[in-house]
């Protein structure tokens, strides 16, 4: 397979393999649980704790799925059930567009970056809806917080992620990845954007210091307070998968994803090498997210909003300005 040609046009079996096994859903499922393990283990070690055993996240998921699943009387049954499914589906769909094994995803087209960004907004909305329709005052309070914080991290996240696209002049992730690998200087030019995107991603994932919507000591678990059993398991899986896809997106846009690609025969061997490179970069991003989480306290809603509008968004605009200047001055 020639680099950049993508996986279109290969036989149906390989497509199914790609879609469901590797690097498709099964792999995402396993990798998400591994990420949760890593998150909990490293966080624990930094707090001088032992941390969970390797299979703990999987065991938790199985246990939750086997437990009684209660829908409260006051909850809107349909939306309450739909919310976790919509959230998880959106993340799995976004995952398919990420270039993981080669420089293109399952289907690469101009504008796929925007589609992924859009799909990654849906889980937040699902969380809001789930909390809102749970009929619980804590859930509604949490849902309100989710909705009111949405813009404070989505705007800087979008702006920061569009920087490499501006430098390169394409909305196609495959092009961005190519450009980055042939112009290493871009790493430095978009470093500020990477930091902003990292902080905004932390907010998107509702992790410390931005875990305001589910602040345990204030509103118990926020939107998730009424969820139990299978639905809660889906939400938790969605949370883990969102971390993988979000970190993966950063790895693709700022760190050139699976590139440099090594050409090997048969084709799946080079897939594996590409995926390994992608994994290392994704894990690096995830590691940074964990570091951030263990060194801070939770901030307040108003503090987060003012932080976003006073710092993140202006800095993201500065980054965009830099990108435009670079482009006009003849590129890098």
């Amino acid at each position, binding site marked *: 397979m020639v680099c950049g040609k993508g996986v279109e046009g290969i036989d149906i079996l390989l497509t199914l393999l790609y879609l469901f096994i590797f690097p498709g859903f099964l792999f995402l499922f396993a990798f998400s649980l591994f990420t949760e393990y890593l998150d909990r283990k490293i966080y624990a070690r930094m*707090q*001088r704790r032992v941390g969970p055993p390797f299979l703990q996240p999987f065991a938790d998921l199985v246990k939750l799925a086997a437990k009684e699943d209660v829908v409260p009387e006051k909850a809107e049954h349909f939306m309450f059930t739909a919310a976790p499914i919509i959230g998880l589906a959106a993340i799995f769909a976004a995952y398919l567009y990420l270039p993981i094994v080669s420089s293109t995803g399952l289907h690469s087209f101009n504008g796929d970056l925007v589609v992924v960004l859009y799909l990654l907004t849906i889980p937040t909305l699902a969380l809001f809806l789930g909390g809102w329709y749970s009929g619980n005052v804590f859930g509604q309070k949490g849902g309100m917080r989710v909705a009111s914080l949405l813009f404070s991290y989505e705007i800087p996240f979008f702006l920061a992620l569009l920087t490499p696209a501006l430098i390169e002049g394409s909305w196609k992730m495959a092009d961005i990845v190519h450009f980055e690998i042939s112009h290493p200087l871009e790493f430095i030019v978009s470093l500020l954007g990477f930091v902003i995107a990292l902080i905004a991603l932390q907010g998107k994932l509702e992790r410390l210091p931005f875990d305001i919507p589910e602040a345990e000591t204030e509103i118990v678990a926020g939107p998730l307070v009424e969820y139990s059993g299978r639905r809660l398991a889906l939400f938790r899986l969605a949370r883990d998968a969102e971390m993988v896809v979000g970190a993966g997106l950063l790895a693709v846009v700022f760190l050139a994803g699976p590139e440099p690609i090594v050409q090997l025969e048969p084709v799946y061997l080079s897939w594996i090498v590409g995926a390994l490179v992608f994994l290392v970069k994704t894990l690096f991003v995830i590691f940074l997210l964990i570091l951030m989480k263990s060194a*801070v*306290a939770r901030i*307040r*809603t*108003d*503090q987060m909003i003012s932080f976003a509008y006073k710092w993140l968004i202006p800095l993201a605009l500065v980054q965009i300005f830099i990108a435009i200047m670079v482009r006009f001055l003849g590129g890098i």
Partner: protein
Amino acid sequence: MGRVKLPIGPQHPALKEPENFTITLDGERVVDVDIRIGYTHRGIEKLMESRTYTQNLYLVERICGICSYAHVENFTQNVEEILGIQIPKRAEYIRTLFLELERLHSHFLWLGVAGHEIGFDTLFMYTWQDREVVQDLLEMISGNRVNYAMNAIGGVRRDVSVEHQKKVLQGMDYLEKRAEYYKEVAINEKTILARAENVGILKTKDALKFSAVGPTARASGITVDIRKDDPYASYLDTPFDVITTNTNDVLGRVVVRVLEIFESIKIIRYLMAHLPVGEIVTKAPRKVPEGESISHTEAPRGEDFHYLRSNGTEKPERYKVRTPTLANLPALAEMLKGTYLADVPIIVAAIDPCMGCMDRVLLLKGNEKPGELVDGERLRRYSIKWFAERGWKA
């Protein structure tokens, strides 16, 4: 959403004990707070009237799981005062050592809890691990981690050996280093500052008006410390400073407690260097003559107040305990008004509440429920009658 009534408690992750704060919210702002207490009334005072003074030593220690020793100290001081016993100097020093070790572990514990309330679990894990050093020292000397059973009426039950003194001093060196680190973190960490600065304001005049005690009052610039104001045990001989700040906020309460850790370490070092030789206990009679006594100590959370009335028997006639949490609750209601919902847990935690120790008895007030006072004898007759009416044997 308009105004929402949010029940915090009796069961809530932010509260380690059952109590209820019904918070009226306007958006994220707290408009009004209604505090309901009395969920964990255990009837300890009544129970004490049916036990001998020696048995009560162990009961009174179980009022609190953190400042257990402050309660025992109060109880023994009360009994000794009525008996007119002067305890040996060495016993006084050992008691002071325990009072200060208790303050150390309580403040380390509080620092962790405060961290947890603002979502800083790393701080929580760190401080609780360091607290183990104090717990180990307490266990080494007394054999117990929480309820040390150190006091006897007339002195203490166990001596502190030279070996113990060495270990205690080593522990202090370690804790001092850690406390330095926490001081740095508390004063410099941006997210902690964001959550603690100008939060839960209690002005000096309000602190006086609502009779706040302990670190809560000291963080509002009031120099009140029973150890200095009415010295007990060996505090008269021991040099130390009363820490106050005038920032009136949660950060001030953090700073006061962290700096008090240093003062406690200073006191313990002094005690270890000047431990007098001699007996550790004087013999006390079993029966306590008729009399009344009050005693107060500076528990880690503030002034702990005890009252004893004896009637010449082996058992007290009346015993009354007022813990520092109760004294701080009116001030707490004042602090909560007008804050954000997100700040409620840390403001509540900042007074270091211990609800289980505080709950005494629930009185029905006002005329919504007409009630009458019934003495024990009438209640007994009523129950006999009640059972007889149903043909049961009382």
